[in-house]
């Protein structure tokens, strides 16, 4: 399982705009680089990230070969209700990672 890091505020006021930060370890091999023998290293990237808030998708991003290793994505959403936010990354070679954070909305 790749190492990932999520930063969601533990508590928020209803209607407040909150910032969510995500970071995941991944080489993001572009598919254009040669190895030491001159052979092209096959592409191996994360190509999709999405987040859902109590089952409703709130953010989606497509990633491409030019994105650097260990992609850091941050976005904002409105705190509507207490519950969980799920994060999913999928990519080449059946790459898949998930992470969950809890939020309390008062």
């Amino acid at each position, binding site marked *: 399982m790749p190492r*990932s890091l999520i930063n969601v505020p533990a508590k928020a006021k209803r209607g407040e705009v909150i910032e969510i930060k995500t970071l995941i370890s991944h080489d993001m091999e572009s598919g254009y680089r040669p190895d030491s023998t001159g052979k092209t290293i096959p592409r191996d990237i994360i190509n999709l990230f999405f987040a859902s808030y109590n089952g409703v998708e709130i953010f989606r991003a497509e990633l491409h070969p030019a994105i650097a290793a260990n992609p850091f994505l941050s976005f904002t959403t409105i705190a509507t209700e207490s519950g969980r936010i799920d994060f999913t990354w999928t990519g080449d070679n059946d790459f898949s990672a998930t992470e969950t954070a809890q939020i309390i909305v008062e």
Partner: protein
Amino acid sequence: MLTCISFKTNTRESGHSNRTFGVYILASLISAASIPTTPAMGGEIPAAERKSGYEFMSAETRAMQDDDAANPATLWVLDGKALWNRTDGEAKKSCADCHSDAGSSMKGVAARYPAFNKSIGRPIDLEQRINLCRTEQQKATPLSFESRELLALAAFIGQQSRGMPIGVIDDAQTKPFIEAGRTIFERRQGQLNLSCAQCHDDNWRGKLAGAPITQGHATGYPLYRLEWQAMGSLQRRLRNCLVGMRAEPYVFDAPEYVNVELFLMWRARGMPIETPAVRP
């Protein structure tokens, strides 16, 4: 103002005796106004003028280092924390079995490394210290240099000293190795015939190919370098500079590297540890 410095090197007599290479470097793309006085040549930077590489970075890169949730090096620190508690080797011991909580036992350790090791009879750096623990205490195989695991452990241990002033011990037995490091630092080498000091002592106010020349204080290693898109040790960074000077780099683990590391930490004495730092 654009300054052109030319270095001429007489190569060894190999059929082309007296052949001269003219290597032209745009060593300083500095506007004359930014230099209040001509910096002293070959001199050490006074304590009041010492600046970490952090101060030469853009606001965005600084923000990345300042926020653990945005600092990619945190991924290695978390790996290091897991490795700290993992049993390994024939002794079936983890780092934590001897050193328990790294938060207290490793506090300040990175700030005084490289340090003299009595059994080896010379200074060793933090990575070598980790491998010594692995072979002697855990009876495990040493981790290879620049491996993810070794960088992770070094970053985790280094982070425990974050904010603490660097203070390598410069006693009588360590002094000769600091001086050996200084000799390498001040010696012209490579096809460009440059010394480390020419950039990092004498021309740190300038730029090289658009990027700031920093003072070269090793305050945040191992660190995440955006250019590498990965974590790297100080030895990797030194290798990088040597290749840039077109000098032959030492092999990883070489005593020469440790001497330079030791000299650099002595040179940065009193500056706070930033591990794990981010650099462009």
